[in-house]
C-alpha cells in the first residue's frame, strides 16, 4: 500500500445469514484469513449480523477494542448498508468509516462452487479492508422536504392515495391524462366478489377529490419533465387544451346538443366504441370534473376552419375557447406517487379468436360497458347485430400466460370472468361456458364466489380455446364454434355460441418506458415498474421519494390497488413528516490548489453544478446541485476533482485488495 | 427350426425393359434389379414362423445387381444369416439354379426334421415357379407351391398349409418337415423396416459369400431369342353424354356379336 492512515483499527464481521451465506461460503476460513491482514483487530462471523445481538456485538467491539473502521460482509448494501451505518454511529464511530461486502446476492446465491465462492469472499473482504482505511469522516447533509405530493394517474389508485394524503393535510397535485378521473374502474359495472356497483363506490370518491381543498386536480394533463431529487422535485405539467375555459363551464352540456353534428358519429373511448360521441363530449355522465372536452381530431372547425361554431354560440357563459393553447405549469413537490395503471391486452393479438373479424366476439371491457346501466345499451345485452345471445363463451387468459403475448397471469381475469358469467346470466339467462386453463381465485371470499358461480350453473370447461370460427353449416344462426380440448375428459369439444367474451389480460401502459425514464425509476422487460424490494419495500422504487401504486407495478384487483395506494401514501407521509432528508455525501469537490483551470469538466456536468471562477481561474462545484455521479472526477486531467465516498485512493485500494497486489509487489520486490 | 429361404433378383419393370443387341438378353444400361415379390413374402413368412416357433432364418441368393440391399433388408427384418453365391452366373436358369442350391445345402446344411425350405412360388421370369420343384427333386423332399398360409403344429412337428387353386378354391394340407414350400403370400404383407435400421445393419452385419465351381453345372435351357410382344389392339375411349356413350356401346357390342 502506498500509504496508510495512521493507526487504523479495523473490525471485520461476516454474516452467515442462516445458511444463505454460510451454506456456500466457508465463513470460518474467511475470518481466519482476514484476521491475519494488517490493520484488522477483530474478525468474527455470526449467524445473523443484522439481528439485535449481532449489532450489539459489533458496537461492543467498537467500544472495547477502540475500532475506528468497520467492514461487514453480508447481503447487498441496498438492503442493510443503512443498518450497519447506524450501528457504527451509535457506537460513536462516524458512519462512513464503514464498508459493506456483498456476500449474499452477488456471491453465495449465484455460485455453486464453495471453494471459488470462499475465495471470492476473501478477495472482496480484503478489498473492503484495504478500502476502508482510506475512508474519511463525512457528514450527511440534511435537506428539508417539500410537503407537497404529486400523484400521477387518476384511477382508483391515484384517487385513493390523493385522498389519504389530502386528509392528512398534505397538498396534493393529481395529474390525469384523460379528460376525467376514474380510470378503468369507472368503466366497470359491478365489482367482484361482493358485486357492489363500481360507480356507487367510486363516484363519491371522485367528487371528494374534486372538492377537496388540499387537492389540485389537473385532468387532460401530462407530466412533461421531472427534475430534482427526493424532497425537492420540480415537475413540469402540460395541461392539454380542452378548448373549454374550466372556470366558466358549468357542465350544462348544451354545447353538445348544439354541435353541428346532429348525431354522434365518432368512436366513444369510454364505451369502447360500442357507442358514438360528438367532437364535443363528456366521457360519461359522472365524469369528474363535469366539463366537456372538444376533440380537435374530429371537430370540423379544427379540420376546415369553416364550422358554424354553434357550440360557441349556445354557451351563455362563453366557456368555449377554440383558440385555447396548452398550459405549462411548474410545481414543486417533495414526493411522487406513480399510479399510471395498466392497458388491457389488445385482443386482436390472438388472431385465432377472431376479435375484430367476427362482430360477436367481444372483450371483457366491452361487455362491462354492455352490462352497465349507463352504458351504450342502457344495460341491455344486445349484440352488434341487434340479437340477444342465448349461448355465451367466456374465454379466460387471453393475452395472459402465453409466451406469444404476455407471460404472466393477469391475476384478475378469473374473477372478473366469473363475475361476467354471473352478470351475463342475470341479464340474458343464456348458457354460459367458461373456458379456463386454471381457475385462480385467491383472496378473501374469492373461492366462495367461484363456488357460487358454479352453483348458478355456469359451465366450466378446462381447456384453452384453440379456435373460433363461424359455423358454415348453420345457415340461420351462423353461430361461432368455440373449439377446445376439455382436458379433464380428454375430448375435443366444439361449442356453438352466439357471443364470445375474451377475458383480456393486463399489460403495462404502452409508454411505460418513457414514464420510467422521466421519473428515473426502473421497469421490468415487460414494462411493469419495479419495486425496491418485492416483500419489504413493495411500494418504494429505487429512487428515493418516488412510490408506486396500483397496476403500473403489476396486475392487481381493486382491494389490493387501494391497499397499495394507501401504503404509498403512508410512505410519502412518513417522509414528509420526518421534515428533512439526509443526502448521501457522495458529491464531488475541487481541490483548488491542483486545479489547472482547463475547464474540461464544466460541460460534462448534466446538472450545471460546475462553474468556472474567472477570478481564481479554477473550477467550482456547487454541492447543492451535484448529484454525485462522478463523471467529472473521472475526466479531470489533473486529478483535482474528488468524489466523497468514491475517492481515487478508495477505488485503487479496492483494486489492490481484490488482486492482493501488495503481496505480489512485496514478493517481486524482495527477490 | 431352421428356415432356409432362397431369393431371386428380377428386373424392375418400373424402367422400360429393352432387349440387348444380342437379342437374347436385356439391355443392362438402365436395368435395375429388385427382389422378386413372392420371395419378399417368403422372407416375411419365414420370419413370422421364426417369431412363433423360434429358430434361425437364412436367406440365400445368387449374386445380382442390388442384391446386397435386398439381403441387408432381410437381415433388418429379422433374418439371421445372409449368403450370396457368386461365380459365373451368365445364362443360368431354373434347373441349374436348383442344382447350385442343392449343392449348397448338401455342403453346408443338415436337412433334418427341423428344416424348412422356402422360396417365392413364382417370379416374373419364372411364372411356373419351376425352381422349387427342381430343387425338391434334387433333395428328394416333398414340395408345395402357391402356398398362402403356413402354421406349425408343435405336437406333431408338422405344418398345416393352405394352397390356392384357380377358381377360388383353396386346399388345406398337412405337410411333413422337412419339405419345400413355394410361398405365394405371407400371413401379413411384408413388413416395413425403417431405413435407419437397414443402414445400421449394413454397418454391423456381413453377407457370407460362396463361390460356385467353374464347371459341374448341367445347364439344360438356353434362350434362343427375346422379343417384345406385338401390339394386338387398342382401347377406344368413348366420349359424350352418358346416353350417347351407352348407345355407342350397344352398337359396338352388337357389331361384335356380344349381344
Amino acid at each position, binding site marked *: 500500500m502506498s500509504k496508510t492512515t495512521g493507526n487504523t483499527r479495523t473490525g471485520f464481521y461476516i454474516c452467515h445469514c442462516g445458511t444463505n451465506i454460510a451454506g456456500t461460503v466457508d465463513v470460518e476460513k474467511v475470518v481466519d484469513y482476514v484476521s491475519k491482514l494488517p490493520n484488522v483487530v477483530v474478525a468474527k462471523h455470526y449467524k445473523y449480523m443484522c439481528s439485535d445481538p449481532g449489532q450489539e456485538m459489533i458496537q461492543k467491539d467498537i467500544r472495547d477494542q477502540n475500532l475506528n473502521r468497520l467492514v461487514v460482509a453480508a447481503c447487498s448494501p441496498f438492503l442493510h448498508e443503512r443498518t450497519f451505518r447506524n450501528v457504527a454511529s451509535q457506537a460513536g464511530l462516524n458512519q462512513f468509516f464503514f464498508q459493506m461486502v*456483498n456476500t449474499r446476492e452477488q456471491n453465495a446465491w449465484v455460485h455453486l462452487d464453495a471453494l471459488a465462492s470462499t475465495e471470492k469472499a476473501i478477495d472482496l473482504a480484503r478489498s473492503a479492508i484495504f478500502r476502508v482505511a482510506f475512508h474519511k469522516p463525512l457528514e450527511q447533509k440534511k435537506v428539508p422536504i417539500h410537503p407537497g405530493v404529486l400523484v400521477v394517474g387518476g384511477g382508483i389508485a391515484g384517487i385513493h392515495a390523493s385522498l389519504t394524503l389530502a386528509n392528512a393535510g398534505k397538498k396534493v397535485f393529481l395529474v390525469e391524462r384523460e379528460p376525467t378521473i376514474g380510470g378503468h374502474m369507472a368503466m366497470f359495472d359491478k365489482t367482484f366478489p361482493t358485486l357492489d356497483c363500481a360507480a356507487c363506490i367510486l363516484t363519491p370518491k371522485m367528487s371528494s377529490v374534486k372538492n377537496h381543498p388540499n387537492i389540485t386536480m389537473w385532468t387532460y394533463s401530462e407530466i412533461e419533465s421531472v427534475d430534482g431529487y427526493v424532497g425537492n422535485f420540480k415537475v413540469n405539467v402540460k395541461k392539454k387544451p380542452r378548448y373549454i375555459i374550466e372556470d366558466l363551464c358549468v357542465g350544462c352540456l348544451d354545447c353538445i346538443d348544439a354541435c353541428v353534428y346532429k348525431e354522434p358519429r365518432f368512436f366513444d373511448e369510454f364505451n369502447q366504441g360500442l357507442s358514438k360521441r360528438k367532437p364535443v363530449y363528456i366521457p360519461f355522465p359522472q365524469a369528474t370534473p363535469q366539463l366537456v372536452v372538444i376533440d380537435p381530431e374530429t371537430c370540423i372547425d379544427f379540420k376546415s376552419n369553416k364550422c358554424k361554431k354553434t357550440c360557441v354560440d349556445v354557451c351563455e357563459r362563453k366557456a368555449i375557447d377554440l383558440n385555447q393553447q396548452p398550459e405549462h405549469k411548474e410545481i414543486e413537490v417533495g414526493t411522487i406517487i406513480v399510479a399510471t395503471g395498466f392497458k388491457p391486452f389488445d385482443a386482436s393479438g390472438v388472431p385465432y379468436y377472431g376479435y375484430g373479424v367476427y362482430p360477436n366476439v367481444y372483450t371483457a371491457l366491452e361487455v362491462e360497458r354492455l352490462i352497465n346501466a349507463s352504458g351504450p345499451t342502457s344495460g341491455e345485452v344486445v349484440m352488434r347485430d341487434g340479437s340477444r345471445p342465448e349461448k355465451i363463451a367466456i374465454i379466460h387468459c387471453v393475452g395472459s400466460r402465453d409466451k406469444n403475448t404476455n407471460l404472466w397471469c393477469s391475476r384478475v381475469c378469473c374473477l372478473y370472468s366469473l363475475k361476467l358469467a354471473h352478470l351475463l346470466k342475470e341479464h340474458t339467462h343464456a348458457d354460459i361456458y367458461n373456458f379456463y386453463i386454471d381457475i385462480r381465485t385467491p383472496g378473501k371470499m374469492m373461492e366462495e364466489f367461484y363456488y357460487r358461480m358454479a352453483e348458478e350453473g355456469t359451465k366450466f370447461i378446462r381447456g384453452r380455446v384453440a379456435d373460433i370460427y363461424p359455423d358454415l353449416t348453420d345457415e340461420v344462426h351462423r353461430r361461432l364454434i368455440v373449439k377446445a380440448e376439455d382436458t379433464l375428459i380428454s375430448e375435443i369439444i366444439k361449442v356453438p355460441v352466439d357471443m364470445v367474451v375474451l377475458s383480456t389480460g393486463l399489460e403495462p401502459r404502452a409508454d411505460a418506458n418513457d414514464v420510467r425514464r422521466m421519473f428515473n425509476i426502473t421497469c421490468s422487460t415487460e414494462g411493469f415498474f419495479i419495486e425496491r424490494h418485492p416483500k419489504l419495500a413493495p411500494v418504494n422504487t429505487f429512487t428515493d421519494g418516488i412510490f408506486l401504486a396500483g397496476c403500473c407495478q403489476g396486475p392487481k384487483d381493486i382491494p389490493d390497488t387501494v391497499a397499495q395506494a394507501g401504503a404509498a401514501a403512508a410512505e410519502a407521509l412518513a417522509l414528509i413528516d420526518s421534515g428533512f432528508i439526509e443526502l448521501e455525501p457522495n458529491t464531488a469537490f475541487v481541490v483548488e490548489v491542483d486545479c489547472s483551470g482547463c475547464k474540461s469538466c464544466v460541460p460534462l456536468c448534466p446538472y450545471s453544478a460546475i462553474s468556472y471562477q474567472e477570478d481564481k481561474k479554477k473550477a467550482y462545484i456547487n454541492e447543492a446541485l451535484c448529484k454525485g455521479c462522478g463523471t467529472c472526477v*473521472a475526466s479531470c486531467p489533473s486529478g483535482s476533482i474528488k468524489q466523497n465516498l468514491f475517492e481515487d485512493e478508495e477505488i485503487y485500494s479496492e483494486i489492490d485488495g481484490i488482486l492482493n497486489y501488495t503481496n505480489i509487489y512485496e514478493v*517481486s520486490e524482495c527477490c | 427350426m431352421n428356415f432356409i429361404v432362397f431369393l431371386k433378383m428380377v428386373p424392375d419393370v418400373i424402367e422400360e425393359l429393352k432387349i440387348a443387341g444380342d437379342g437374347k438378353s436385356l439391355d443392362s444400361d438402365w436395368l435395375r434389379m429388385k427382389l422378386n415379390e413372392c420371395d419378399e413374402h417368403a422372407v416375411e413368412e419365414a420370419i413370422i414362423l421364426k417369431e412363433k416357433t423360434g429358430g434361425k432364418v437364412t436367406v440365400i441368393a445368387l449374386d445380382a445387381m442390388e442384391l446386397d440391399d435386398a439381403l441387408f433388408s432381410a437381415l433388418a427384418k429379422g433374418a439371421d444369416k445372409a449368403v450370396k453365391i457368386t461365380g459365373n452366373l451368365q445364362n443360368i436358369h431354373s434347373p441349374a439354379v436348383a442344382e447350385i442350391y442343392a449343392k449348397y445345402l448338401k455342403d453346408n446344411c443338415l436337412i433334418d426334421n427341423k428344416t424348412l425350405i422356402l422360396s417365392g412360388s413364382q417370379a416374373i421370369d419364372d411364372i411356373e415357379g419351376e425352381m422349387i420343384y427342381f430343387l425338391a427333386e434334387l433333395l428328394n423332399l416333398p414340395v408345395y407351391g402357391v402356398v398362402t398360409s403356413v402354421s406349425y403344429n408343435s405336437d406333431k412337428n408338422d405344418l398345416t398349409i393352405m394352397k390356392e387353386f384357380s377358381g377360388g378354391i383353396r386346399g388345406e394340407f398337412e405337410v411333413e418337415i422337412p419339405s419345400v414350400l413355394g410361398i405365394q403370400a405371407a400371413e401379413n404383407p411384408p413388413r416395413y423396416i425403417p431405413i435407419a435400421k437397414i443402414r445400421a445393419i449394413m454397418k454391423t452385419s456381413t453377407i457370407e459369400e460362396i463361390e460356385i465351381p467353374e464347371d459341374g453345372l448341367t445347364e439344360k435351357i438356353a434362350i434362343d431369342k427375346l422379343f417384345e410382344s406385338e401390339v394386338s389392339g387398342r382401347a377406344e375411349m368413348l366420349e359424350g353424354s352418358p346416353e350417347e356413350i351407352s348407345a355407342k356401346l350397344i352398337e359396338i357390342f352388337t357389331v361384335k356379336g356380344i349381344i
Partner: protein
Amino acid sequence: MLLDENKSQSGSQGWQPKIIAFFCNWCTYTAADLAGVSRIKHAPNARVIRVMCSGRVDPQFILDSFAKGADGVLVGGCHPGDCHYQEGNYKCLRRFQLFKRVVESFGINKDRLRLEWISASEGDKVRLVINDMVAKVKALGPLSLPKKFSEWDKEMNIIEEKIAGKEEAVHA
C-alpha cells in the same frame, strides 16, 4: 518488449481468471443483485467494484487493474438513455471507445476489456455477460502483468548494468 498476446500462454493449468467489474449503482449493480435474488448461477470470477455511475470509471482504474494482475476488466452501465445521471453512460462510452484502442495498442487482447449495458431488470444478462467473458479470457490465458513487469525490470537492470559497464570501459 510489448506484450504479444498472439503467443500462446502456457502453464495455466487450473488457473482461474480474475475479472474486475465496475458496475454502476443503479442498473448493473442492481441487476447483479437481481441475479442473486433470482439465484441465477454464473461463473465466480468477477469481483464487483461499485461506482455510482459508469461515468465515474476512470481509464486509469482499468489500466491499474490490468497492471496489478487482473485478467479482464468489465464495465457495466445503464442502457443508453437510461442513465440515472442523464448521460454518464455516454461519457463512459465515449471514453471507452478511445481507451479500448489504447489498451489494444499495448498488446492486450480486446476480449479482456468489455463494456456492457445491463439494466436493473436484466439479471440473466449478468450471467450471460460474465460467463461469456470468463470463457473468452480463459481461452486467452493469464495476463500476469505484474510478473512480466518484474521480469522486464530485471532485463532493464541487466541492460543498464551492461551500459554502465561499457561506459566505465569507455571511461577507462
